[in-house]
């Protein structure tokens, strides 16, 4: 009798505890001024929190680790523009690639009021087999996946394609695969039994609560930073709201950025000197053939890109694809030949045209010294380049002469 | 595998032949077998001695015992029929066999 009583007491205590935690999490705000441009894995994983930041004029910008670079410079997108100039929601972490962003887009689409999205493509995404299963497992978001499967605007064909790709990418991770199969059965299956359906619902709810709780904890830890609105550090941000600076204004900014880092890239690769010391110098002599067998023509990432664009089309979202520049000195040196990079540019342009998306190819700038801090990440000038491209798309204006 | 005691057993003695016709004294037969198997006359002297605790017999010894009981008295006891505790002294064993013989 005592053990049964102990069990019941413990169970009741647990319920009370769970309710309290739930309350605490519910009270955390996900719409602080700095939230939408915050670089955080927890934020990117929690679709409801992201959706809460989709205002009338919010544009989604998806990328990956570049968002974590240059945060202290005035050219980083979150410092360059205030919310009145350009309201963006940044989503992207290391290992984010086309497929995970496809799911993010599909899950957020129903809440988008300003139906525009930018996808910053890094050529590294296209290396060999595209998205790695480990990367997929690291970036997997239950709320994004469930949101995708339950988005009725998408055709069943598209949703089934996503389900199949997710199952393929989770084959190395038994637990993830079980979960993916459960969600597929519960949310897409035609013949699913009651028990499995219920289990899918419950598991999904539990996982989304977990994502929410983790985000709430991260928000609490960072709440000071999140109070700062984008562009706050700038005495003046770019232009006035919605007005595109002229080309001469952009060129002035370019020269300024150039001068700011003029003395800091005196090395054979034209990366920043500090990165040269840290990452490149010691392996420079032996890296000649590092990327000899790397190819950029494998089908997977291109197919994932097509999936992304299919979703954009079915949801009526105007999309711009920006092919980011890479450090050509490094890739030429390591034998990732220019022909591969040209193939990539051409193929991306073709796919964009097929799906009616805008495309901007920044790979012409790959030989620009001081553009990137290392092989792929934007430095001050690099950010400026990206900023202009995005702002132009947002305002639908080309800079005047 | 639950083998008891670690007493050295070197069993290579021939067991005595088929049961004599007529009534066999169960007590004598069992004590004789036990003394052979445990290689110790103490089982005759102290029929309440705990042969498991004293390390006088192990599980192969038990099986040999059951075999000899069957041969000498005709009473069949299966290996798993009784627990160690139920058969851990000579007197207990004798009591069980006698009860079975009567049934």
């Amino acid at each position, binding site marked *: 009798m005592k053990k*049964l009583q102990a069990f019941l007491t413990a169970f009741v205590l647990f319920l009370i505890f769970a309710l309290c935690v739930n309350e605490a999490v519910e009270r955390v705000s996900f719409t602080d001024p700095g939230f939408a441009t915050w670089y955080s894995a927890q934020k990117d994983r929690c679709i409801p929190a992201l959706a809460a930041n989709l205002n009338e004029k919010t544009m989604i910008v998806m990328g990956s680790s570049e968002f974590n670079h240059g945060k202290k410079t005035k050219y980083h997108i979150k410092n360059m523009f205030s919310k009145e100039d350009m309201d963006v929601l940044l989503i992207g972490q290391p290992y984010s690639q086309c497929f995970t962003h496809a799911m993010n887009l599909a899950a957020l689409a129903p809440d988008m009021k300003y139906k525009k999205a930018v996808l910053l493509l890094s050529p590294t995404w296209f290396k060999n087999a595209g998205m790695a299963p480990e990367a997929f497992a690291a970036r997997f978001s239950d709320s994004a996946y469930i949101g995708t499967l339950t988005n009725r605007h998408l055709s069943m064909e598209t949703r089934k394609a996503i389900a199949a790709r997710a199952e393929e990418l989770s084959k190395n*991770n038994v637990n993830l695969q079980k979960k993916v199969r459960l969600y597929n059965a519960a949310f897409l299956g035609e013949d699913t039994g009651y028990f499995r359906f*219920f289990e899918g619902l419950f598991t999904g709810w539990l996982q989304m609560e977990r994502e929410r709780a983790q985000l709430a904890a991260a928000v609490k830890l960072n709440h000071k930073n999140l109070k700062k609105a984008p562009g706050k550090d700038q005495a003046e941000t770019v232009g006035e709201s919605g007005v595109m600076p002229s080309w001469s204004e952009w060129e002035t900014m370019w020269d300024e950025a150039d001068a700011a880092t003029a003395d800091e890239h005196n090395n054979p690769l034209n990366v920043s000197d500090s990165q040269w010391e840290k990452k490149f110098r010691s392996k420079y002599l032996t890296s000649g053939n590092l990327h000899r067998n790397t190819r950029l023509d494998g089908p997977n990432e291109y197919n994932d890109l097509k999936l992304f664009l299919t979703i954009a089309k079915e949801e009526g979202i105007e999309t711009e694809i920006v092919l980011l520049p890479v450090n050509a000195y490094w890739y030429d040196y390591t034998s990732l030949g220019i022909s591969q990079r040209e193939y990539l540019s051409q193929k991306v342009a073709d796919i964009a045209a097929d799906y009616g998306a805008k495309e901007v190819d920044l790979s012409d700038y790959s030989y620009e010294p001081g553009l990137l801090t290392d092989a792929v990440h934007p430095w001050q000038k690099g950010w400026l380049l990206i900023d202009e491209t995005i702002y132009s798309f947002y305002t639908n204006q080309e800079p005047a002469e | 595998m639950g083998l008891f005691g670690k007493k050295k057993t*070197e069993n290579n003695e021939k067991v005595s032949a088929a049961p004599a016709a007529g009534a066999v004294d169960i007590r004598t037969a069992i004590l004789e077998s036990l003394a052979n198997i445990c290689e110790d006359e103490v089982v005759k002297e102290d029929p309440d001695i705990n042969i498991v605790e004293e390390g006088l017999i192990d599980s192969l010894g038990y099986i040999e015992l059951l075999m000899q009981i069957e041969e000498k008295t005709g009473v069949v006891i*299966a*290996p798993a029929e009784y627990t160690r505790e139920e058969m851990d002294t000579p007197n207990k064993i004798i009591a069980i066999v006698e009860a079975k013989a009567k049934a």
Partner: protein
Amino acid sequence: MGSMALFSDLSFFICLGLACIPAIILGVMEKPLRYYGFAVSLIFVFLSMGHNVPALIFLGIFLAWEYIEARVYLIVRQKIGRNGRLYWLFLILSILPLCLNKYLPKTSEGFSVFGFLGISYMTFKSAQVIIQIYDGQIKKVGLFPYLYMDVFFPVITSGPIDRSERFKEDCYKVLPKPEYLNLAGNGVEKILQGMVYKIVFAAIFWDLLQKYGMGESVGGYIIYMYLYGLYLFFDFAGYSLMAVGASYIFGIVTPDNFNKPYLALDIKDFWDRWHITLSHWFRDFVFSRVTMDLMRTRKFKSHLVIASIAFFINMGVMGLWHGTAVYYILYGLYHGALLSLTEVWQKKSAFYKNHKNNKAFQVLEWAVTLHLVLFGFLIFSGHLFGVA
């Protein structure tokens, strides 16, 4: 109907929780639990196998086959007495379904003969009944207790293996309220403990295994060995605890399967602590019989030789029962060898006899035993053969 995985799926635990409520009410009211338990067991049989109609059909055939066989053999035994040939015939017939299941290849549709959940464990019980009829210990076989014993849901998946007469006794016993509450309380505790073992610890060690134990170097294999040993224990002991706990709530005191196995001092002790019901079943129905038969032939004078042969046969069969893969057989023979060598060592070595109560020696003994056991599990996992 879905295919519920017992003791694994969330839906199972919810159903179990709901099913336990009437059981506890009946137990508190001092009413018999067996009919309700039987009904619940049938429901779980349908929930776990309902989607697979051939499996249900095979289960039905199996139960009918085994029950009729037991009844017929009972009559044969009563009329004809202990006839060795007939005994072997009936015994082989009772394990025939399992052999067909394991050794016939799968059909083109991918289903196997007698392929239903629990056949391996139900066969143990059916064979035990035949053996004990031969022994003369079982004199009656009732339809209800026989069927209930085989379909009793907590132990269908992987045991523990109960004995037919012990189960029957519990099944017909109605406990007074305080005793039942005590039993049910223990049952709840065991279920929770089992859940922590299986759902938390086993999962952690499995993850660690996938992350750090997959290296192809010697070091990699060593890491795999330790992590797999921990994973296997928590997974299996966790499941066993949940099975035992659930059976307590339904009034059956199923025997435990694990008793701190990694504290074993030697291999014989280990098998008294790991998968106890399996090892005791083999001890009582294989090892002891083989030993007795060998002794009767009078061909081997030495107990040590007899014991060694019996160990090899016993553990070899145990290995084979797990499956036909070469590493299962090797695993069985490996333990056969270990047990034989241990027996010889303990009986013949003066060093052992002089030091066996010495603390330092015991620590050494424990460490050696632990690693021998873990290496055995490494074989068992199939990892050395590129399987896992």
